[in-house]
């Protein structure tokens, strides 16, 4: 690793080894304690699908699935997730076959500039897994952690509604394979 950053008077801190199951592949990585999960993905692993919007947990563009649950990757440290399973937007499709939520976003033109889209899609998949969204009002409320500055909300809502049942089926199929 390169020279270790230190703070005046502080003991030098070395990068630490962690293991992550990232999009189905086990990865051995070295991270500094202050590296956020988002910076690990974008800067160290070149997985730039996950976006840095506000970097303060306010916009949801950095949403990923940590052990199946949606979180803001900008507000957590990579080093804290040694041994975790992580799914990013790059890990949703199966080969060339889009995840139903991705396909529905294309079908419904659920974006304009596209910057918030990876976070919207990961968040929507996480929301379906939570099993608490029944109807449009619930979806609106439970997707409120993902902002779209282009205002594509009506189409985002339509895409999520459309893909909900297929996403549920896929999630339960995965659970049956992995007890």
């Amino acid at each position, binding site marked *: 690793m390169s020279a270790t950053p230190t703070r005046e008077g502080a003991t030098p801190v070395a990068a630490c080894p962690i293991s992550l199951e990232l999009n189905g592949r086990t990865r051995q990585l070295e991270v500094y304690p202050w590296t956020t999960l988002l910076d690990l993905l974008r800067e160290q692993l070149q997985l730039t699908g996950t976006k840095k919007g506000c970097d303060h947990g306010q916009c949801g563009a950095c949403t990923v699935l940590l052990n199946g649950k*949606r979180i*803001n990757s900008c507000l957590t440290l990579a080093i*804290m997730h040694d041994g975790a399973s992580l799914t990013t937007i790059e890990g949703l499709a199966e080969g060339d076959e889009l995840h139903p939520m991705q396909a529905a976003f294309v079908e419904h033109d659920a974006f304009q500039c596209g910057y918030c889209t990876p976070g919207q899609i990961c968040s929507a998949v996480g929301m379906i897994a939570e099993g608490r969204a029944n109807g449009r009002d619930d979806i609106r409320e*439970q997707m*409120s952690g993902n902002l779209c500055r282009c205002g594509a909300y009506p189409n985002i809502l339509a895409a999520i509604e459309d893909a909900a049942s297929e996403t549920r089926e896929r999630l339960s199929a995965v659970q049956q394979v992995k007890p």
Partner: protein
Amino acid sequence: MNPFSYARPAAVDEAIGLFRPDSRYIAGGTNLLDLMKENVTRPTQLIDITRLPLHDIEETADGGLRIGALVSNADLAWNPLVEARYPLLSQAILAGASPQLRNMATTGGNLLQRTRCYYFYDSTTPCNKREPGSGCSARDGLNRIHAILGHSDSCIAVHPSDMCVALAALEAQVIVQGTGGERRIAFADFHRLPGDAPERDNTLADGELITAIELPAQGFASNSAYLKVRDRASYAFALVSVAAALELDGDRIVSARLALGGVAHKPWRKPEAETVLVGKVANEAAFDEAASLLLAGASGFEHNAFKIDLARRSIARALGEAAKGASR
């Protein structure tokens, strides 16, 4: 972020033993890391407590619930026992933050989140909470989201939590552990008013760790309501919030709990605003009387005086919803 060292203890005693004055415990990290990015908090060591065995929700011998400090806000809100017995707590949690944040944020951390006063976050401005003695920029600045009760010359910030407003109304206890062993803090005594030491949000000693929250058996499940008023429909901090809980005999009030959020440095309760309701018929006149007592002494600033009236009406509405019952 500034460099810092990192430790991941496996036991509570070990975590407490690692603590030095410039350490911080980290669990969900959703507020702490934000504060570190803004240079508001600059620890030289983070102690990762997420592997400590504090993840369970258990029933207590007296019919209450003990919630481990590391239970996530989402898991707590959706726990079947909490939904059935303490719907006020579920509602309050789900009114706060976003689903992503609630998946990471923990029970203990929710209590320790810091104010969202703009000036506290902006290290180019004076702020007595961030830099004791530097002054308060909010008193004569943008103070729409600030306190109307319990503020001091040195600080007019509010505590931002929704969950804590419900915990105050439910009279939870905070279980903490330090080098001297374990102690219990009544929820009303956990957070403090700013006075002339606004840098202290609560009554924890240095290095003390929250291990659990305990709820008493009385959850007011049939007649409670959490009302949050904010600038947008979702994912915003409260301008005013109300946790209202009633025990009713027909339409007569047997006991009442009332706590406000978004108006003070801590969840705001007054015993006289609750006892005045006892024995009365649950109607608007009684609710208005309680509101007047709870808001006694309120005073606003240039941009937030509207909150006094807003709080008065919100209290009456929340009590009305609580009286109507769980069918709402």
